[in-house]
């Protein structure tokens, strides 16, 4: 392989960005390999959008090194922009413009654009072709924005919360698109706070909080690091006295009523533990519903790392 093939699509090191006295990004490191999908996951205000906008060349970093397709997005933006696709968070069209016109306009800025009618059809926007932007639904606006990001046949796309405001059907459609992009060798950097989105799409998940990377890895790596933190979840009548169950479980296992009527046993879950739990339920005369043994969800990892408080 030549050097350009092995060079990462996005490489960020020591990135710092401040707004006045607030530090939005604080020494962030990021590496997106070519042809892969990286999900930047984090609570609101974690610095996801700022990071993406630095990579797109919209913001000047206060410190750190950023290379996108081997280029400096600020100094070499004119060379970079024809090669990337950008889906900003919300908006991105004239309020009165028709969906078809907007896509044609963005297509006219590209050297070798995709066929706009085909793209609108793929994204289910054909019947909105002549609808003014401000009358499109939130999900349609997002899909148009995605179309604008893709119409120039980019090598790399930045998608800032691509599925926010979409119904489940539209979300699946966009997920399929992103998988197809990866299949075509396009690199994708997306931000999201949907765990399912990150788990479904990403080769590499980077969890950021307060402008720093707090964890990263493949979704599987992130959720199975520790065999002692497996979970057994079940639903039953709320308010059961779990002290007998705690006593019966092997050492290192804990049980808690995480939400009303949802019980979670944490620890090394083996067949013996499952049997103990069901036996205890039988003693209590309750039926354990939705009994599920599994690794932690990405959401558990996320909440553990970023805390449970609202921001």
């Amino acid at each position, binding site marked *: 392989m030549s050097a350009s093939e092995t060079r990462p699509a996005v490489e960020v090191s020591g990135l710092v960005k401040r707004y006045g006295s607030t530090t939005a990004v604080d020494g962030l490191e990021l590496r997106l390999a070519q042809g892969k999908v990286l999900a930047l996951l984090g609570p609101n205000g974690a610095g996801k959008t700022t990071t993406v906008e630095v990579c797109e060349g919209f913001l000047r970093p206060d410190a750190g090194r950023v290379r996108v397709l081997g280029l400096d997005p600020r100094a070499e933006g004119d060379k970079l*922009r024809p090669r990337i696709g*950008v889906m900003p968070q919300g908006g991105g069209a004239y309020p009165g413009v028709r969906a078809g016109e907007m896509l044609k306009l963005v297509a006219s800025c590209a050297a070798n654009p995709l066929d706009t009618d085909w793209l609108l059809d793929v994204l289910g926007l054909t019947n909105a072709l002549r609808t003014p932007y401000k009358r499109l639904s939130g999900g349609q606006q997002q899909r148009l924005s995605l179309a604008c990001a893709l119409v120039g046949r980019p090598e790399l796309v930045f998608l800032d919360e691509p599925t926010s405001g979409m119904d489940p059907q539209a979300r699946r459609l966009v997920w399929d698109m992103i998988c197809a992009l990866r299949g075509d060798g396009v690199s994708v950097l997306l931000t999201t706070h949907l765990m399912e989105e990150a788990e479904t799409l990403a080769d590499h998940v980077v969890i950021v909080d307060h402008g720093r990377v707090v964890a990263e890895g493949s979704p599987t790596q992130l959720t199975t690091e520790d065999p002692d933190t497996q979970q057994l979840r079940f639903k039953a009548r709320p308010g059961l006295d779990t002290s007998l169950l705690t006593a019966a479980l092997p050492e290192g296992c804990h049980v808690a009523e995480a939400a009303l009527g949802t019980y979670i046993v944490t620890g090394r879950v083996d067949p013996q533990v499952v049997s103990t739990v069901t036996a205890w339920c039988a003693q209590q005369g309750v039926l354990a519903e939705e009994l599920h043994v599994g690794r932690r969800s990405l959401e558990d990892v996320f909440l553990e790392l970023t805390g449970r408080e609202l921001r």
Partner: protein
Amino acid sequence: MLLAHARTETKLTLRNGEQVLLTLLIPIALLVGLTLIDIISLPEPRVNSVVPRVFALAVMSSAFTGQAIALGFDRRYGVLKRLAATALPRWMLVGGRVLAGLTVVAIQLVVLGVVALVLGWSPSLGGVLWTVLLAVLGALAFGALGVLLGGTLRAEIVLALANIIWFVLLLAGGIIVRAGSMPSGFAGVVELLPSGALTEGVDLALNGGGPGWQPLAVLVGWGVVAAVVAARTTRLT
């Protein structure tokens, strides 16, 4: 790219009801009304005195108020960022808007000119050529001021200010009431406003011996200063 951008912007302006009201219907109503109804005393033929006022108003309406409001809302809707993220070079982002603004001014002046001809206006060729030059300079100066306003503040504030300034300049900026009819100290100031300079210039071009250097210099001055400041203050969102 440039033409596609300019064409889209022009179409959007002409499709927007409020913009059409501001840029065409109000000037046409004033042109017809002031010519046919004896509200303010004007020398005969009245249309010759009305045309410079209405041309100046039309340029101010579209290049300043229309541009400022459109830009304010385009920023709100993230259009500038969208286009800035494409391969469209930065100068074309500005160039497309300028070209669209000049196209709209050209359409306005042709429509208003035809209405004026019907009302008995009979300009000289030299006067028309000077008027075209003044209209271009006026559109650029007002356009730069419009970008200065629309590119910095929140959309709602832009909407309010752009309309208030339009109204103030129409009444007190040398358009309806000409600088010559104002108290002498005030008149000197009004002639230095872009509205006053454009009205005086077009009037001297069409009804006098030529615009002279002052209106041209005033419009160029406003245009350059506003453009330089706007280039520093305009934000994409």
